[in-house]
């Protein structure tokens, strides 16, 4: 089993390789006249080199007994997962439902699921937050928030 540094470095190495290949397709030009791909190519190369340093460092640490450290250890990992999922749903429903309704539902959902609150706190939090943000953005900063089914 690889340790965290080895794994993350390997990911960076492949990202660096991808950048190098894409940069080549843009054209490197020459030092006299560098093209669009010149800088990204150098960055990709640096990324791969640093990733190799990371893999070596991770391997040396593994020899010292530092193994894979579970990222979910001692934490409630499902909370960030639920939050992120709800945000993707929010993006999906924002325009059809409108800002006020979508935001109130999101806040209510987060208050209910992440660390469950009493219903009156959830209701107050959902209504207060959505109207507070609405007042700041729509009324004060003149941002055009999606009206959706509530028409304002």
């Amino acid at each position, binding site marked *: 089993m690889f340790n965290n540094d080895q794994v993350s470095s390997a990911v960076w190495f492949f990202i660096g390789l991808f950048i190098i290949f894409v940069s080549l397709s843009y054209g490197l030009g020459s*030092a*006299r006249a560098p093209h669009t791909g010149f800088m990204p190519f150098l960055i990709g190369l640096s990324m791969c080199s640093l990733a190799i340093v990371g893999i070596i460092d991770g391997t040396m640490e593994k020899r010292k007994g530092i193994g894979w450290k579970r990222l979910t250890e001692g*934490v409630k990992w499902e909370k*960030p997962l639920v939050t*992120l999922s709800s945000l993707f749903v929010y993006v999906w429903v924002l325009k059809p439902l409108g800002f006020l309704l979508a935001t109130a539902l999101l806040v209510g959902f987060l*208050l209910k699921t992440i660390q469950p609150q009493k219903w009156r706190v959830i209701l107050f939090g959902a209504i207060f937050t959505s109207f507070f943000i609405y007042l700041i953005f729509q009324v004060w900063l003149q941002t055009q928030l999606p009206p959706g089914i509530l028409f304002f």
Partner: protein
Amino acid sequence: MDTVYSLFNGFALVFHPSNLFFCFLGTLIGTLVGVLPGLGPAAALSLLLFTTTSIPPVSGIIMLAGIYYGAMYGGSTTSILLNIPGEAASVVTCIDGYQMARKGRAGPALGISAFGSFIAGTGAVVGLMVVAPPLAEMALKFGPPEYFSLIVAGLTLVTFLARGKMWKALLMATFGLILGSIGTDSMMGATRFTLGIPELIDGIGLVPVVMGFFGLSEVLLNIEKPMGRSIFETKIQNLLPTLNDWAHSTYAILRGTLVGFFLGVIPGGSPILASFVSYAAEKKISKNPELFGTGMIAGVAGPESANNSACTGAFIPMLTLGIPSTSTMAILFGALMMNGMQPGPLFIKEHPDMFWGLIASMYLGNMMLLALNLPLIGLWVRILRVPYPILFPLIIVFCLVGSYSLNYSLTEVFIMIMCGWIGYILRKFEYDLAPFVLAMVLGPQLETSMRQALLLRAGDPTIFITQPISAFFLAVALLILVMPFIPKLKKKFQKIPKEEAG
């Protein structure tokens, strides 16, 4: 005489009711951010970055700057009363501040940290006013090779002082550089890494990226941990320090001001580093070093002064050289760019109103902060009781609407969420985000400087080492890169306190 005249103009600008209001709002939000653990100045600035396009630019920048230095004031409150730093630069204040609270001296601890912050903040503004204009004049002599090397040295210094392993910090810098290169190549007109998304043709927006990396990822990290906190129950009285307290604190405040200012000017020399250096210095100078950690007032006065002074000092490289020295400064740099102002040697000449207005607002802001932090301390303590589980949905909605409001684009909201997720994963793998944001902001300038320098000498790369100033900056960068490998310096390097991303 010019300076006095310009400063008066700055004050005239700040006393405009709208600027006065935004200065007050900034210091108020800053104190709130400092008081509330789990929300740092970088995250707060990223949440409010978009507002600078909706309100007059001068007001917007005055407000963002107020949040930054205001957070330094507020950070001490939680350190003293909760033993939890409100923001990273107040970590060291916990040591003696909390002990003072336990001994029933929370009042003088809060009082001296507010007074120390005020003295240091005002002193550093004087320093900024005196040092920035001549430094900008000097930097006018810089050409593309000097700029390229200066950015390389600045980025290297920031990665050197970043949290965790140096190769990780350098990887984050390359990641920032590649994100900064997305969009249209300014010299050739071709597009790069846009993945066919029209919103990316002008580059990836700074607002959704920093909101995701600093705002959302911080929330995700906070909610996965237990969210309870308990306030040390003590009666806060005698906020005005006694003569004896002043006798023990005056020199600590003055030393903290100087140390903080000089460390703030150095790229990577964050307020947190300044506060640790100040604490170490006070302990070393003290006749009773063994009493540090038991509630010594100098252990509160010195670091609190240093972090305020450093945060003002950090404006110097950003405004005069165009090199932000911390992640928070990089966001302020982005705010100026978004409003069509390029920080750098010409900034003071091209935007004197902005520069002198900002300076004047800092004088005024420091006075406002003193008024906010001393008589209203009871209010901040009450705010501390607002539980994080109720607060975090508000932060999330700010991130969502803030990233949407710039271009009314759901793609940018999606980018913000993705950045929040990536930032969360990166933090779990112990990658520091500060070098990332600095590199992303400076990347386009780094590339332009490099290509212009190469064009100047028909592709001869020796231009970077034959120009003396450029060679000096590159030598500094090389020295920094080599330092961790020298065994004697390696141990010292590991002891340096690092800046937290948020």
